[in-house]
């Protein structure tokens, strides 16, 4: 029992994460400030929700690089609609953003299932199309804080606890974390406690065997891509609400960060492997590293280098693990 806990990838990631935290804390003691930890937690929310969708797609043996485009489309369309109609709501706009993401995800699924196309190519294509249409048809102007719907700003600033530091500064734990945790629980439940969820693992593990056993390939593929789209759409609007800004060029290059986080969390590029807990740890690791680079005043361009390294190291580690198991 003890041993099997140690063998789990989540344990390994958690240990690596802990070591990284200790190391960063040594270099920069400010890391352990509650303010910093709260802000770190807050930065997990949007990437984390997107990562849950990407995780599901990757377990099924697919990949999705279109979700940042879907997220930005859902956010920008919804915010522009709110501005245009002077619509002050929270639930309604989030339903709209989620629905936009979901609809776009269904398009991915239709190509992947119906035309048996390679998911990477499909999602590269749909992502590019959606971004292009958004900028070409809807507009390129940013919705700034002055025009941003007040209801969204208020929602995005909801706090769980509010504290003051000795210097008189104010910091708080964002309530958005609860949304992230709730979604993580839901996806965890889907993946581990429903037949549909086990079907996602089965499809990624061996598609032909899944078909012979009687798992519904069509349902699984549609659910997986629709879920990734819906989560991206939701996370997109949440992002807008948290930064009080809707920029139609946002989320550029985010796909790499999120996929890096998911791979770091133990999911396999080849499908059939991965967990919500691992993904959350992976997201935390990635966010923490970029966050620390900022604290240490390292230029943002170098963050790309670090993310690149993380992707390569994490993939190397997982393929080493998989090779050992096959041998």
């Amino acid at each position, binding site marked *: 029992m003890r041993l*099997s806990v140690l063998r789990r990838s989540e344990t390994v990631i958690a240990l690596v994460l802990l070591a990284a935290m200790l190391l960063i804390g040594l270099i920069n003691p400010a890391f352990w400030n509650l303010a910093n930890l709260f802000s770190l937690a807050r930065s997990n929310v949007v990437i984390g929700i997107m990562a849950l969708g990407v995780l599901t797609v990757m377990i099924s043996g697919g990949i999705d690089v279109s979700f940042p485009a879907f997220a930005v489309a859902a956010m920008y369309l919804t915010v522009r609609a709110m501005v245009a109609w002077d619509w002050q709501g929270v639930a309604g706009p989030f339903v709209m953003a989620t629905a936009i993401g979901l609809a776009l995800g269904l398009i991915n699924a239709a190509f992947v299932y119906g035309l048996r196309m390679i998911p990477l190519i499909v999602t590269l294509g749909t992502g590019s199309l959606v971004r292009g249409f958004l900028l070409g048809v809807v507009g390129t102007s940013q919705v700034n804080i002055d025009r941003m719907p007040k209801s969204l700003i208020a929602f995005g600033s909801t706090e769980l606890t509010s504290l003051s530091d000795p210097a008189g500064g104010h910091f708080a734990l964002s309530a958005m974390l609860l949304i992230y945790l709730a979604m993580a629980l839901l996806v965890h439940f889907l993946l581990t406690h*429903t*037949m549909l969820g086990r079907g996602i693992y*089965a499809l990624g*593990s*061996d598609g032909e065997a899944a078909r012979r*056993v009687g*798992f519904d390939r069509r349902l699984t593929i549609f659910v997986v891509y629709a879920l990734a789209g819906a989560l991206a759409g939701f996370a997109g609007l949440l992002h807008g609400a948290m930064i009080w800004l809707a920029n139609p060029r946002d989320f550029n290059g985010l796909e790499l960060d999120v996929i890096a986080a998911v791979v770091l969390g133990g999911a396999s590029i080849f499908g*059939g492997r991965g967990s919500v807990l691992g993904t959350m740890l992976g997201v935390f690791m990635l966010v923490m590293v970029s966050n620390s680079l900022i604290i240490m005043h390292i230029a943002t361009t170098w963050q790309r280098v670090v993310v690149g390294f993380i992707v390569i190291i994490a993939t190397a580690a997982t393929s080493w693990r998989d090779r050992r*198991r096959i041998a």
Partner: protein
Amino acid sequence: MSEPLISLCEVSKSFGGVQALAGLSLTLRRGEIHCLAGENGSGKSTLIKIIAGIYRPDSGSVLIDGETITQLDPITAIAHGIQVIYQDFSLFPTLTVAENLALPSEIHAGRRLVRWRHVHQLARAALARLGIDIDLAANVETLSTAERQLVAIARALMSAPRLLVMDEPTTTLTGREVERLFAIVRDIQRQGIAVLFVSHKIREMFDISERITVIRNGCVVAAGAIGEFNEAALARAMTGQEITAEGYRWMPPPGAKPRLEIRGLTVPGELQGIDLRVMPGEIIGISGLLGSGRTELALALFGLRPTHQGEIRVDGRAAALRSVQQAVSAGITYVPEDRLTEGLFLTQTINRNLLAASFEALSRYFLIDFARARRASADMIAEMQITTPSGERPVMELSGGNQQRVVIGRWLMRDARVLILNGPTVGVDVGSKAGIHRRIRDLAESRGVAVLMISDDLPELVQNCNRILILHRGKIVEEVMAEATTEAILSEILKALS
């Protein structure tokens, strides 16, 4: 005689103009072990898929319990108690044994949620039925092939089947695992379940089956109780040709010097003081249990055991075999057991596959002499008698036997003096097997190649080698002349070792 469980009447099926089944009729009775024999491409797989409901026949009918089933799809087939264990087992490598066992029946029970306790209960019961013990929490990818097969069988039995179809179940098993499998199959039969055992291994069919149906080119060419057949008749029915079973007789050429001399070859923990002399044209059979050191001997000769001690001479010259490169330049060639997965570039052309190891020899100043390369590969296709319209066809279009010849041919292009073959005909059907054996003998006789043939297939060794060695715990424990032994004697020797 028990009642028919499933009957196929005049079933035909074609794929894009290729007639896979041509008016084939077959009856399986309740509770019998029935063997479906045929070479690769004879229509066995199509037949299985029709029984499983995956393919619909173009014409003809399928009867289950005497009633015609018009729309046999996979769900109906399963509902009628038909379970198929495919060659790849259809398991999920990244899921646990428990899930692999229980999920299918949970799907068919229409469950939406996974009840983990129930899954484990189901799985435990399934393994208990076969009397086997496998860790339920282990991922299937960590199991051996034999264990995976047991999981697949246990899973198939969970749905209380009446017919279990096993597609070439012994291909990747060792001798002892095959015996265990047969015990389980007989046990399944005692539970009243019919078994359709699909195979191309003649020996096995006599061991396990009660009735045999032989198909060739989509037609039944022979059928009846096992007692009505003998091995020669069965081979003739399967291949449509007479296969001669004449042993390899070899006479030392006058004044010949040994091609390969091994003195005191030792690899710590693997081989202990191996002494061996092989003359040109000799074919030496090597057998032994798994872990006997037979594969390690091949690896040591091929430069993959750089720490070995002892002396190795090729044509009288001492050969340092510390790397594959050195082994190859000494004229030693090794065709591994898993050549189909690791030895061939399946999507590449036959020419490229043949030339893969020779480009260096065929090039000058980094440029490949393509004219020479083309000639060389055309010659090799002719010499190995590879059946193909052109060397530019991809290797995956070839039959298993022809693929084998490509691999062997590739290494022969390098002018091999010592050829080591590990399981040269594993997974190859009777007809192609005879062809490969013929080629190996020709090579030994006409080119004076010294051949070491490692195999579990004792008839293969007795028939094709002039001398047979048996290894055990890294030592040669027995050396017999093939003409003075039989398969039964060898089998006794091996049994005594285990």
